[in-house]
């Protein structure tokens, strides 16, 4: 809406004052979803008149009509407006975006994650500007179950098959933070969504040239941080900001028990692996998830995951619960399903791997994960 339009509404229709003006303006914002393509809009005027003292006559105009075309428009935004706080060496760190279908028809969306170019990030606005290290292993997933948070192993779709007009869906970039990153450094990442044909995800192209009798495809999107206007794409930045937390994972073999009761590495010997999770420095590692693939030539021993929470403050839900642990806790045995609510599983979140979620862990924090495997 243009400001001139607002003025006109106020001056024409209003006497009591500005508050009523606002009342008028607010409901006028947005025909975001819009009339579906293919709708025929028709206009015709009727005129009545008389000649001399004669009776009233009626004349009707021609009907002028046209068909509503397909408007392709979208918007991508980073949801939190601030960088995701991560620890050094953290894996599976999540930034959350929202993709909104601003067109007038259902649309599919292809998704792509990328590292921003340049430092400051090209086209970025604060806080997504400083770009002095590169996150690694970027992956992008749609919020398939629609709960607004990334669920590893559940939100596995890498595109949005179909999104209704005016609807939005969350999209996650999942990345790892290298051990070489330093506290205070930031890595800017971009999410680019491209409007595509629903379900088939085939590319969309604009109907070229002059109007056709049927529904034309018209791109109406603006320019994002890395894409141009009217290209059926929109891109936005998010970022990972390394806080003072240093996440150190140390994997050791705690014990070996062979069938003879001694500690010889031989077939059918049971190895207990131990992963020490150590958060040093200061700050919080958000959504801390430990994933450890099973070593080659071993077979996981069912229900052998155990967690010993020694110290730290935890939030957001995780294997060490919520709150501050001031004294070391006894080991807690965990099940292998990801549906049993104990924040630990084998071969569910990640194939053939042990996954333990610790939630938002504030340093200093320490915990020990153990699991057992048999040598083949």
């Amino acid at each position: 809406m243009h400001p001139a339009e607002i003025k006109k509404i106020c001056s024409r229709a209003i006497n009591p004052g500005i508050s009523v003006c606002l009342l008028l303006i607010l409901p006028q914002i947005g025909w975001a979803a819009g009339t579906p393509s293919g709708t025929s809009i028709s206009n015709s005027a009727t005129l009545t008149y008389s000649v001399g003292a004669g009776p009233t006559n009626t004349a009707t105009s021609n009907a002028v009509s046209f068909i509503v075309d397909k408007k392709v428009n979208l918007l991508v935004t980073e949801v939190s407006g601030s960088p995701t706080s991560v620890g050094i060496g953290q894996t599976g760190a999540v930034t959350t975006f929202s993709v909104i279908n601003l067109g007038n028809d259902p649309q599919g969306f292809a998704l792509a994650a990328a590292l921003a170019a340049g430092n400051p990030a090209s086209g970025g606005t604060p806080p997504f500007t400083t770009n002095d290290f590169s996150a690694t292993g970027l992956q992008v997933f749609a919020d398939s179950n629609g709960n607004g948070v990334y669920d590893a192993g559940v939100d596995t779709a890498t595109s949005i098959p179909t999104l209704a007009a005016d609807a939005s869906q969350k999209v996650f970039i999942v990345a790892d933070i290298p051990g070489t990153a330093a506290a205070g450094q930031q890595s800017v990442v971009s999410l680019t969504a491209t409007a595509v044909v629903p379900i088939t995800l085939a590319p969309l192209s604009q109907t070229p040239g002059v109007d056709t009798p049927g529904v034309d495809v018209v791109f109406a999107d603006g320019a994002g941080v890395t894409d141009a206007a009217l290209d059926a794409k929109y891109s936005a930045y998010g970022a990972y900001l390394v806080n003072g937390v240093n996440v150190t994972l140390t994997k050791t073999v705690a014990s070996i028990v062979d069938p003879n009761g001694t500690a010889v590495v031989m077939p059918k010997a049971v190895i207990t692996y131990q992963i020490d999770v150590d958060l040093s420095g200061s700050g919080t590692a958000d959504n801390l998830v430990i994933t450890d693939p099973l070593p080659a030539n071993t077979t996981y021993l069912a229900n052998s995951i155990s967690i010993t929470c020694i110290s730290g403050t935890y939030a957001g839900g995780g294997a060490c619960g919520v709150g501050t642990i001031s004294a070391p806790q006894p080991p807690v045995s965990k099940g292998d399903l990801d549906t049993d609510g104990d924040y630990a599983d084998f071969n569910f979140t990640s194939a053939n791997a042990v996954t333990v979620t610790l939630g938002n862990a504030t340093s200093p924090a320490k915990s020990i994960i153990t699991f057992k495997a048999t040598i083949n």
Partner: protein
Amino acid sequence: MQISRLLLITTLLSMLGGFSATVQAAGDAIKVTSIAQVETEVIGKDGKKSLVRTPVEKAIPGTEVIYTTTFQNLIKKPVGDIVINNPVPNASEYKAGSAFGKDCDILFSVDGGKTFGHAEELTIKDEGGKPRPALAKEYTNIRWIYKKQLAPGKSGEVGFRAAIK
């Protein structure tokens, strides 16, 4: 066809006088033409911007369409009591302040054309049943009352703008 009818009208007029002539002339005394256009900004060779109206082509939600109705007197007598009625097209929102028409009193309706009033007079009952000023987008019909007689051969023009919802 047009010419022969005109001849007939003229003949009847001369033979029988005005009364029966107007009955016969019902469809033909005034020709009404409606067009739909969009306005686009073009930059000329001199670098100056100007607005150009073209027929509606790419019509997507949000597009502002200009509807213009032209009426022309085809007979040799002045035509009076001219009232033009135009519903706001389907899937469209009337743009506030856009109705135009020289020598016309412009009225609007918010009840599908049952009653008409000037923009500032129109109200809609809110959920509590209390009347509030109607919004331009709630207009359902537009009416132009042409305050003059339309002389033979002359034409008039009225119109409005509405955005595709």
